[in-house]
């Protein structure tokens, strides 16, 4: 366990926080804000890349904050899983930032009479990035809660930007549901401390093994409920489609990409580290199946494309849960690969929807028509990630799904095979939902007759500036590179899954070092 690169770990959080402080202090000058945010996020991406390489070759990178040992202070651990999640989420946040800069200030508020809302976007986005990174690298359960609160507070502000009636209503729903899930998580931490006397993840994984199994199961259930609400697992997934679509396009994109995946990451970490071989894998499998099917049925029933995508987002969380619930190395590896794919493709799709909104004037599929002919570029930019999401080969969505199906078949139990059938059915229905939207909005299925000129409804058509197109094209390209580098990427996720199931590498890295001697 070399701590050669450990010094980089805290910088992952410090960079965005210092950035947030600076951008807030420089509230008036947007140019300064933009430079600071872009540098902070690019710095994070570079650091995360180096840490991914370091954790892959030299094992988890651990930083004991303030020199305090694991049983006292906070430990920041970057293993392959954490590094992978950080690098993908930072890349995605950078793309969203570039999109919002390209979109100009007016983009945030359709009704605003040209006056942009307060310059809070940059500091809040940086706090969001810091919060997300904190949850990924935290080696301490309470610090995971603080990370959750950071990204929640930032997401509250971003969701209610501009304070329009619709955003306030959607914001209220989102705020109360998130507050409730945080309260449940806090209660679970309190009870965990009550049961074991520590909140450090590494120590917990040892001590939870030694207390009464019934109590460990109780704590696991409470943690699962808290994370399931955040990851929008059925039956607690109703809030997501009501709140995400109302925010401005870049904000919805970063929400769709990151927030639910934080809940999924927390599940992966706690299920493998704290509760190995847990008795609740069947319960999770059933929840995964229901999330998939109910989510995709919701998507088919929608007219608005943003809501349809929010429902497919919820449905594909079921795929991730399927991989986690299997618990086998191949299942976990496929799940982690699918998480990386899911973050990229969902954010891309929502950014493209921002373009659709600018070109077609609305995202309601019944009022759009013939977009593929008006702007073929937007057509291509929508078609590739949409097919990727529906799991059409050769894209990364397909590769992740094949991994999950293989893990399910290898498991062999009737429930696993039922899940395999469910996941195949879900990807077919996703394809059906996407084809329906494609037919209506991009071709002109809404046009009744076979008129030569497909009528184009919808409001004004803004020309698509390069500032908005470039980040979207870049993100679609990232999605395609996921396909090309799928081989090595799957190797990393497999090695990560092996270490997760094994637990030793993590425990040795954190507990191996006794408290540092006096000052």
């Amino acid at each position: 366990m070399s701590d050669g690169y450990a010094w980089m770990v805290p910088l992952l959080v410090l960079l965005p926080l210092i950035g947030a402080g600076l951008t807030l202090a420089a509230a008036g000058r947007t140019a300064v804000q933009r430079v600071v945010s872009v540098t902070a996020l690019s710095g994070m991406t570079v650091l995360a890349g180096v840490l991914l390489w370091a954790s892959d070759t030299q094992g988890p990178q651990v930083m004991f904050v303030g020199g305090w040992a694991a049983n006292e202070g906070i430990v920041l651990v970057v293993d392959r899983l954490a590094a992978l999640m950080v690098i993908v989420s930072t890349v995605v946040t950078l793309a969203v930032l570039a999109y919002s800069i390209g979109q100009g200030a007016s983009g945030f508020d359709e009704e605003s009479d040209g006056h942009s809302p307060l310059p809070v976007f940059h500091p809040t986005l940086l706090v969001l990035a810091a919060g997300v990174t904190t949850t990924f690298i935290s080696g301490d359960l309470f610090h995971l809660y603080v990370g959750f609160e950071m990204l929640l507070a930032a997401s509250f502000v971003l969701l209610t930007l501009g304070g329009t009636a619709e955003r306030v209503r959607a914001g209220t729903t989102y705020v109360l549901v998130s507050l409730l899930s945080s309260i449940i998580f806090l209660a679970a931490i309190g009870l965990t401390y009550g049961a074991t006397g520590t909140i450090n993840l590494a120590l917990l994984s040892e001590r939870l093994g030694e207390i009464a199994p019934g109590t460990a199961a109780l704590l696991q259930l409470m943690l699962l409920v808290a994370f399931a609400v955040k990851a929008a697992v059925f039956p607690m997934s109703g809030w997501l489609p009501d709140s995400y679509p109302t925010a401005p396009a870049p904000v919805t994109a970063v929400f769709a990409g990151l927030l639910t995946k934080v809940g999924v990451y927390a599940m992966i970490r706690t299920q493998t580290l704290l509760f190995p071989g847990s008795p609740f894998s069947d319960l999770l499998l059933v929840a995964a199946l229901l999330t998939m099917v109910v989510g995709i049925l919701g998507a088919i029933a929608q007219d608005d494309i943003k809501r349809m995508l929010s429902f497919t987002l919820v449905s594909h969380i079921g795929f991730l849960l399927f991989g986690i619930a299997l618990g086998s190395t191949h299942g976990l590896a496929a799940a982690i690969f699918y998480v990386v794919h899911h973050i990229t493709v969902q954010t891309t799709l929502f950014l493209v929807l921002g373009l659709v909104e600018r070109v077609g004037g609305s995202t309601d599929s019944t009022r759009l028509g013939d977009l593929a002919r008006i702007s073929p570029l937007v057509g291509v930019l929508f078609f590739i990630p949409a097919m990727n999401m529906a799991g059409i080969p050769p894209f990364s969505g397909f590769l992740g799904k094949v991994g999950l199906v293989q893990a399910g078949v290898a498991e062999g139990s009737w429930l696993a095979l039922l899940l395999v059938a469910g996941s195949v059915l879900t990807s077919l229905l996703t394809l059906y939902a996407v084809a329906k939207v494609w037919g209506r909005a991009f071709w002109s299925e809404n046009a009744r007759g076979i008129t030569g000129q497909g009528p184009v409804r919808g409001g004004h058509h803004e020309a698509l500036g390069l500032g908005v197109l470039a980040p979207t094209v870049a993100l679609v390209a990232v999605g395609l590179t996921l396909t090309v580098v799928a081989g090595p990427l799957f190797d990393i996720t497999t090695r990560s899954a092996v270490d997760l199931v094994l637990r030793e590498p993590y425990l040795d890295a954190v507990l191996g070092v006794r408290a540092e001697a006096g000052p």
Partner: protein
Amino acid sequence: MSVNLTLTLVASVLVGTGAYLFLSRSLVRALMGFLLMGNGVNLLFIIGSGPAGSPPIVGAGDGGPMADPVPQALVLTAIVITLAMTAFVLALAHRGWQVGRDDLVADDTESARIHARAEADDLGSEPGAREQAEEIAAETERSERGHHGRRDDAATDEEGGTA
């Protein structure tokens, strides 16, 4: 470790009443519920920190065993986070009142519309199964010359053709 019954009772009553208030439609009332549950959960930490003891200040205590300082620090952090969240929710309530003249949380319009459509069993503008099948059959018999077959009526027959 022995558990303090009074504190457990207080904590569960606080969480229970908080949950009751949390479910109300008025945002401020839900916030009250949130504050009650927050107090209750903070007490859980204190119950978890073991029996009461002297304040965790080295040298100042009355010699008895000190209370466990770690959960106290955690609760302190949680309290300040709750304060920040309360301020935000109140600002949201005020904005909600400014926009809607009351702080009742309305249903999501789009979900309600789909719920109404489900009640009325109206499947939207899609034609029935029979019409769709016939429409496609008619489509297959339509000549393509008008649409993407080459339409060079005016042009002389440059190919000359072998007619």
